[in-house]
């Protein structure tokens, strides 16, 4: 049961939600605006989960996620436009083809950019990916083929209800596919190599991990799914403009990932919450939303940090911790110190070390080692 919950929780929740909503949509219980909101959530989830692959598991900061999304959106959108005369723009085959081609195009760009860029680290990689996003945006904005600055009109899915509905179903399938692939990559030997690089790159090299290969693997997988999200986006809005995919958008995705605690399930939850928040702000505040949005994002982030760390809220947090609640629900008599092989974070990390424990451990502070001779200081920064 535990294992099942741990591995398939996100699939089951999202899958069943998708089915329920599909049925609700089919009988006409969902208004069009709600469907649009759900589509936006689906896109945000795909983006957040795929960016989390780079930020959360590979441990590198990428600010070019909107760039990959932009490539996916334009390649997929243009393909649908080109195919609209022969196959029909809103045909399901066209959509699937567009998803495949758009995803592959973004993945290819990820490969080309990642090959040189992933030799860099930290801030430098962030700058390169940021530049990449801007370059993509500007090239597409100035290309006649992609409709230059007037944007690209993609097939209209809103004309008829069943069309809109198909798009939503496809979105749900893409979300499930994203979670499936990324979870499975992470929970395999390849994923272990990727997290090993995050934890200690020097040790990973010495343990025989081809660091460039695995970094590239993570980066490309992330780019492919950003491309898929882009294709979905281009269909859900009918008219795409390159200006949308600026670096603010990348930052927004990053905020979602960071807010989600850089885990897969957290990214899903925070993607839905942020989309909902966005939507509420848009409907309540109307016109001048851009300023207020950033302000409220910042407020939410600050409040969360305070909530996470405030000493006066400690007992509250421990009592109503979502993780602890799950454990209580699943196994009431379970000893939290004895957990399964693939233990999830919240029950492994000790909350606080008591002074007795500190005194009883055998740790002796190393004063003899000349740490400057170790490669961390010199060789590590090559």
């Amino acid at each position, binding site marked *: 049961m535990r294992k099942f919950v741990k591995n398939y929780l996100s699939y089951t929740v999202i899958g069943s939600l998708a089915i329920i909503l599909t049925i609700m949509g089919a009988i006409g219980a969902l208004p069009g605006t709600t469907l649009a909101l759900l589509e936006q959530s689906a896109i945000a989830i795909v983006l957040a989960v795929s960016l989390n692959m780079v930020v959360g598991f590979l441990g590198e900061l990428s600010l070019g996620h909107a760039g990959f999304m932009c490539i996916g959106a334009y390649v997929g959108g243009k393909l649908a436009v080109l195919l609209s005369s022969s196959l029909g723009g809103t045909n399901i085959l066209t959509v699937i083809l567009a998803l495949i081609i758009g995803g592959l195009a973004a993945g290819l760009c990820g490969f080309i950019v990642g090959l040189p860029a992933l030799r860099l680290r930290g801030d430098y990689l962030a700058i390169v990916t940021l530049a990449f996003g801007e370059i993509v945006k500007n090239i597409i904005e100035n290309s006649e083929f992609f409709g230059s600055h007037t944007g690209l009109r993609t097939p209209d899915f809103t004309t008829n209800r069943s069309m809109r509905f198909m798009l939503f179903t496809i979105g749900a399938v893409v979300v499930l596919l994203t979670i499936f692939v990324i979870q*499975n*990559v992470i929970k395999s*030997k390849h*994923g272990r*190599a990727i997290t090993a690089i995050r934890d200690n790159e020097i040790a990973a090299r010495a*343990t025989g991990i081809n660091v460039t290969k695995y970094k590239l693997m993570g980066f490309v997988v992330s780019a492919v799914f950003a491309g898929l999200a882009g294709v979905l986006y281009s269909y859900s809005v009918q008219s795409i403009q390159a200006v949308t995919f600026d670096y603010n958008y990348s930052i927004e995705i990053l905020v979602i990932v960071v807010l989600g605690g850089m885990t897969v399930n957290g990214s899903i939850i925070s993607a839905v919450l942020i989309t909902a928040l966005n939507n509420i702000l848009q409907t309540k505040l109307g016109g001048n939303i851009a300023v207020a949005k950033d302000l409220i994002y910042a407020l939410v982030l600050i409040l969360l940090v305070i909530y996470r760390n405030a000493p006066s809220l400690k007992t509250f947090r421990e009592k109503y911790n979502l993780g602890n609640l799950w454990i209580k629900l699943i196994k009431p008599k379970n000893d939290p110190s004895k957990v399964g092989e693939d233990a999830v974070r919240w029950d*492994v990390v000790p909350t606080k070390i008591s002074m007795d424990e500190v005194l009883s451990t055998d740790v002796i502070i*190393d004063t003899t*080692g000349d740490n400057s001779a*170790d490669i961390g200081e010199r060789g590590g920064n090559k």
Partner: protein
Amino acid sequence: MAKFIDNVKSFVNTKILKKSHKRENIESSYVLETKALGITFGGLKAAQNVNLKIKKNQIYGLIGPNGAGKTTVFNLLTGVYQPTDGEFFLNGENLTGLPQDKINHKGIARTFQNIRLFNNMTVVRNVMVGLANQPEFKCNLFESIFRLPRHFKVEKAMREKAKELLRIFDLEDERNNLACNLPYGKQRKLEIARALATNPKLLLLDEPAAGMNPHETEDLVNTIKIIREKFDMTILLIEHDMKFVSGLCDEITVLNFGTVLAEGDTKAALNNPEVIKAYIGG
């Protein structure tokens, strides 16, 4: 023009195809043999003319005062630095100039002076990272994503092998704890277990006893002896604890200011007046 083309060709060969070292193998009865190995950082000769000859199943010590270039030699042997002079051979195979992961695949594994574990991963997974490159655990990305039967087979086999390794190091009960939560002595052991998981022919230990209490050191001596017997392993280690060295090593090399001061039998080398002078001064 012809000269320019030659320049381009040599650039492509050295920088892109990495053919600078025409690696020639030699006939050698030693597990590790270095020939005039050295590196200079600018004008600083961090290590020069280091000739090590390590026989199979030997425990070999590399000692010297602080800043003598011991860790530099380790970094040369594992490909962290590319040697500016000389070559080194593992069982006669020239490994000079290979990248770190390739050297590890060929059979040199190491531990670090300040422990470098994968802190946010469980103990068993730390070892499984080391196992991943062995040919019997081959499984490509496609098979992992779509959970084909081979993925499960390989994962299970890896987990069993990792547990087996951890049992030898008496870490099996800790296998589901995060590596960063282990006590110091166990972290050391885990680092050695992870290095052994890559199935090396030569194990490099960088100050394994640093920061350990006498009890832990004694435990470590036993562990190293067990490694030598069970895995038929050749071990090269750096250490400052002379009791540890003289009790464990068959032969040693003493370095000072990047050069070899003395080498050979442990007792004789330690009683060499030059060595005593280097350590005590005068």
